[in-house]
C-alpha cells in the first residue's frame, strides 16, 4: 500500500494522512493508491502539512500499518533510545516492530 507522511507545519510533529486529515498515529494511515500527488499538492498548499511524501507500507501480522523503511518506522514511534517520549501507539506495536 502507499501511504502519505509529513510533518506538521507549526509543531513539526510527524503526521500520517488518514483520508480526511493528518493523524499522529501511523495506524490511522490509509492507502492512497494513485492519488498521492494530488493529495500532497492540495494539503501542502493548505499548510496542513510540511514536506509531505509518499511511502510504501504493509499491514503486518498484528494488523498494524508498517512503513517499508526503518527511517519511517522510527518516525512513527519516536526515538528508540527515548521510549519515554514515544507516541502512545508504541505500546501496541512494541519496539521490535521498528527493526
Amino acid at each position, binding site marked *: 500500500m502507499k501511504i502519505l507522511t509529513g*510533518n506538521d*507545519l*507549526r*509543531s*513539526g*510533529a*510527524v503526521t500520517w494522512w488518514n483520508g480526511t486529515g493528518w493523524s499522529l498515529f501511523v495506524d490511522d494511515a490509509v492507502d492512497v493508491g494513485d492519488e498521492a500527488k494530488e493529495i500532497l499538492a492540495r494539503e*501542502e498548499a493548505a*499548510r496542513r502539512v*510540511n*514536506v509531505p511524501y509518499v511511502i510504501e507500507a504493509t499491514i503486518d501480522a498484528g494488523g498494524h500499518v508498517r512503513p*517499508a*523503511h*526503518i*527511517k519511517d518506522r*522510527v*518516525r512513527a514511534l*519516536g*526515538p*528508540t*533510545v*527515548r521510549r519515554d*517520549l514515544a507516541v502512545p501507539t508504541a505500546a501496541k506495536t512494541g519496539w521490535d516492530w521498528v*527493526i
Partner: protein
Amino acid sequence: MYRYDQYDQAMVDARVEEFRDQARRRLEGKLTEDQFKPLRLMNGLYLQLHAYMLRVAIPYGTLNAHQMEALADIAEKYDRGYGHFTTRQNIQYNWIKLEDAADILADLSKVEMHAIQTSGNCIRNISADHFAGAAADEVVDPRPYAELMRQWSSFHPEFTYLPRKFKIAVIGSETDRAAMRLHDIGIRIVKRDGEVGAQFFAGGGMGRTPMIAPMIRDFVPLDQLIIYAEACLRVYNRYGRRDNKYKARIKILVHELGAAEYTRQVEDEFAHMLSVGIEPPREELARIAAHFAPPAFVDGPKTLDRSDPDFALWVDRNTHRHQHDAYVSAVISLKPAGGIPGDATADQMRLMARLAKQYSFDELRVMHTQNVLLPHVRIADLHAVWSALDEAGLGSPNMDTIEDIIACPGLDYCSLANARSIPLAQRISERFAASGRTAELGELKLKISGCINACGHHHAGHIGILGVDKKGTENFQLSLGGSEAEDVSLAKITGPGFDEDGVVAAVEKVTDVYLGAREDGERFLDTYRRIGMEPFKEALYGR
C-alpha cells in the same frame, strides 16, 4: 570570557526580528517551504525526523553559568527537558515548534547567544581547544584569535554562499584537542622567537572523503591573520566545486589542485589582500584579548585526600593539569554507562551552571567529545565538585576510555542517518562497564557515526563505527587506527560489516587482540600501528 558589545547585540537582535517576520510569513502561507528552508537554516533551524531541531552556537565551546541556565530553561520551556551537546561544541534541541522558534532566539539573544551560521554553506561556529586558557601545556591562549575569527566570519557578506559549509578550529598547544587538522582550516597559534603568529592548515575534513589538512603556511604574523584566512577562503570560494555537492568541500579543491598549487594561489591572493588593508587594528585584538584575562587564581593545596577510591579514580581519569598548580580542569562526563552520549537534562545543566559559578570562575566549556568542562577548579574544591556530579549522574570516571564514546544522533533523530548510533554506544559502554575491562584498556577512543557525513568522527576513532543501510537494514562498518590528535591519522576499514550484535562482539574481539599483543605503555592506537591490521582481521573474520 568575551561579552557582546553594542554592535554584537544589535546584530543578533536584528536577526531575531528578521527571523520572527520570516517565520510568521511561513506560518501564514506567504512563504513556501522552498522559500523558507534556506532562511530557517541560516538560523540553525532544521527539520529532522520527529520535529524541528534547533542548533545553538556556542563559540569555541565557551559559556558562562547564566548562559547554561538559559539553555536549561529553553530545554524545559520549549523542548522536552533535555539538550544534546555536539561534536562541534554546540547544543541541539530535538523537539522544537516552528511557532516557538523566534521566541527561543530572542531568549538566546538576552544571554548573548544565537543560532546564526550553525547551518548552510557559510563559515560555521569556530571551534577551539576546550582546555584553552587552562591547560598546562598551552603555548598561547587561542580564544582571542577564535573570537576575532568569529567576529570576522559572522555575516561576512562574501562568504555567505560558499560552495559548501566551512569549519575552522583554532588551538594554541602542540597537543591537538580540537581535531584541528580534520577541519577545512585548522589554525595553531604559535610563538616564534617570542613573536606570536599562526600556523595554517587547509583542506582537512571527515565526511564522505576524509582528508588530513596539509600545512600551507608555517607562520602568519598576527597582524595578517584575518587577511590570510580571507585569502584561503577567497581561493576556495572562487574555485570550489559548486557543480557537485559531494566534491564541493575545500578538501577536494586542495587535493585536486595539490597543496602546493593551492598555497601558491592563496599566497598570490594574500599579497593582493595585504594592499587592501582589511586587517582589524591591533587595538581591536587587544580589546578582545582583555576579555580573556586569566581569572584571579589563588594559591592553595596541591594535593588531595585520595582515601575514597571512587573519588581517586575520577580525579585520575577526569581531571587535567592546569597552568596554576593549585587548580585542575575537571571533565563532567555526559557518558554514563548505557546513557546517550552528549545528552543532558535541564536539571543537569543547572547543576553544571551552579558548579561553574561556585567553583570555576563562572565558566564552562563544551568539549568536542560531547562532555562539559569546568576549566578552573581548585584542587581543594575537587571533592565537593565530584560529590555533586556523582549524585547527579555526571560523575562517570571515563574520560578518553572506551566508555567515553562519541556518537552522533544517528537514525534515532537525524534525517540524514542510515543507522542508529546511540543504541550501539549504549550497548558498548554498558558491556565494558559491566566487565570491568575499561581500566585495563586505558586510552581507547571509540567513535560512531550513523552515516557517511561522519558527525560522530568515526574516521578519527582508534576504533570507528560507521552505520550504513544494507538493503533496508542497519549494517555497521568497523575501522581501526584513526586519531584526531597531534598524531592524526585516518582509520582503515577492517572488512565486511556487521549487524548490531555482530559489531558489539567485534569491538570486544578487537580489544582482546590489543590486550594480547600490547607491549608496556602502549595505547590501543600504538599497538595497532605496530602490529598492523592483519591480527585484527584474523580475529574478526578468521583469515
